[in-house]
């Protein structure tokens, strides 16, 4: 009886250790040392939004993105036509909604970069509102340096990272 119990206990231990080892090969979630395992967030909850390439075509712009200089938040005049195209569209489609996503290059403080990305997104929002777009159609968010457009540490990569993506949540 005693031996039986011990074998059973060992079998359970072996199985649970084995399971832990299996799951660890996938995502390293385990049961050792009092960690009960990870929770998952945001997986499979992608919000619907309109394909960016499609929207760029509708608006007649190459890419619905505005790029910024290092540590700067002003919009260069070469992007005025993008602001204009989006403003015209949003005014004629009052149910359309956009999310302005501010981003930075991956240098410096991550939280300061969140502030910088927010300023860039707000700058674009302000320009759209000056063109008569309702603030109700706009949400701004900053991802700072957390979502680089291009990986790597070249100046070219950094330039493409410093941007505001204009994302249509609805047409």
């Amino acid at each position: 009886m005693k031996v039986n119990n011990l074998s059973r206990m060992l079998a359970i231990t072996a199985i649970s250790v084995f399971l832990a080892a299996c799951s660890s090969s996938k995502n390293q979630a385990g049961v050792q040392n009092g960690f009960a395992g990870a929770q998952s967030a945001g997986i499979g909850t992608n919000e619907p939004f309109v394909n960016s390439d499609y929207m760029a075509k509708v608006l007649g712009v190459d890419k619905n993105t505005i790029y910024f200089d290092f540590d700067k938040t002003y919009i260069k005049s070469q992007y005025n036509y993008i602001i204009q195209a989006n403003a015209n569209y949003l005014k004629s489609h009052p149910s359309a909604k956009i999310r302005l996503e501010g981003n930075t290059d991956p240098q410096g403080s991550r939280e300061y970069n969140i502030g910088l990305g927010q300023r860039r997104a707000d700058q674009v929002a302000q320009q759209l509102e000056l063109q008569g777009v309702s603030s109700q159609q706009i949400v701004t968010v900053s991802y700072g340096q957390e979502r680089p457009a291009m990986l790597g540490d070249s100046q070219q990569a950094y330039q493409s990272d410093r941007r505001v993506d204009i994302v249509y949540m609805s047409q």
Partner: protein
Amino acid sequence: MRKLLLSIAALTLAAFTPNAYAVLNIELTQGIAAAIPIAVVPFSQGANASSTDVAAVIHNDLANSGQFNVADNGSFNQYPQSADQVNTSYWQGKNVDDIVIGNVQSIGGGQYKVTFSLISLFNQAPNNVLLTQQYTVSQNELRRVGHHISDLVYQQLTGIPGIFSTRLAYILVQRNPDQTAKYMLMVADEDGYNARPILISSQPIMSPSWSPDGKQIAYVSFESYLPQIYVSNVATGQRRLITSFSGINGAPEWSPDGKQLAVALSRGSANPNIYTLNLASGSLQQVTNDWSINTEPTWSPDGQTILFTSDRGGSPQVYEINMATKATQRVTFNGNYNASASFTPDAQNIVLLSRQNNAYDIAFLNLQSGNLQLLTHGGNNQSPSIAPNGKMVVYATKASGKNVLAMVSTDGKVNMQLPDQLGDVQEPAWSPFIS
């Protein structure tokens, strides 16, 4: 049958080890001359040897601290297991001041008895045994015992508490070719072992901050596409939403008494300001109030002041605000980019990120003299976090195009890089002492 099951258990436990990572690329730049010479004699493990080499854990801990010059195991051929077996003149000839000896015995039922002693070779006192302890633990606690012994040895010989039983939290990012990514809030032992996720998300996770008791971590999650501050329990993974204001919800930092979080909130405006949030009542108090970026609050050890980063003067600099009087003073003056500051435990210095000659370096600022010492020398470094004993700083850096973690001593003499993992590793946060 029993034997088979045991060997399966041993096999699967062994399968864990490849996931763990050990410190490597240790570059002891100047530390070794002043380091304490010590030998850690391999512990006899008996017939039922465990896969965990306790003496190796202690050896690595002490060597990686930079405070010890640990003798190479190949440099001696005596293996005393108890104080009476120590041949003092033999060990004195090996040019070490102290030796650590011990053994691990399997006592059945998956339990192990660990015995260790720290012996001084130059102590004139009648008893040259400085420390001796015995522990009974299970297999998966053997590493922890090793770290505990390292803490005791470190404290005995340096007078400073060791940090070998502390943990690191950090963000691990795995990017896929299709532009999607997996973001993981990870917790690992201070030496990188036992790494496991607390939270896994398809959207960015940022700015982990430990509660003072080491039981909870506050962080920013973009799981809803907009930033929100959450707190997770480290042991259970259970979590709760703390703030979800319009705009920026960032940079949570636990107050020393554990009752408040300092946070950066923009609340619909274009710029974040510092607030404190009472965790029990949920009440919010505004700390800064202007139209610049104010972020990255960290508390002084006594909770009386907060350091933060602000570009109110035109470029990001570190400021200190007195919580009672709201009197604010600028703290950094070297160069045009200083950020990510936090106090050393003695409140005499701050560790920060400083841009010098177009490089982002980790720096050490003495508050009295105003002297700024660079601890790193060029590159793209970020996110410094100080060990609770004030001796080491963990930070994020780049190596071969990947984000990895590195450590540097606060005197700048010891610098080591942690090996890369399956992904980019960023934003390390050193835990407090965990009892």
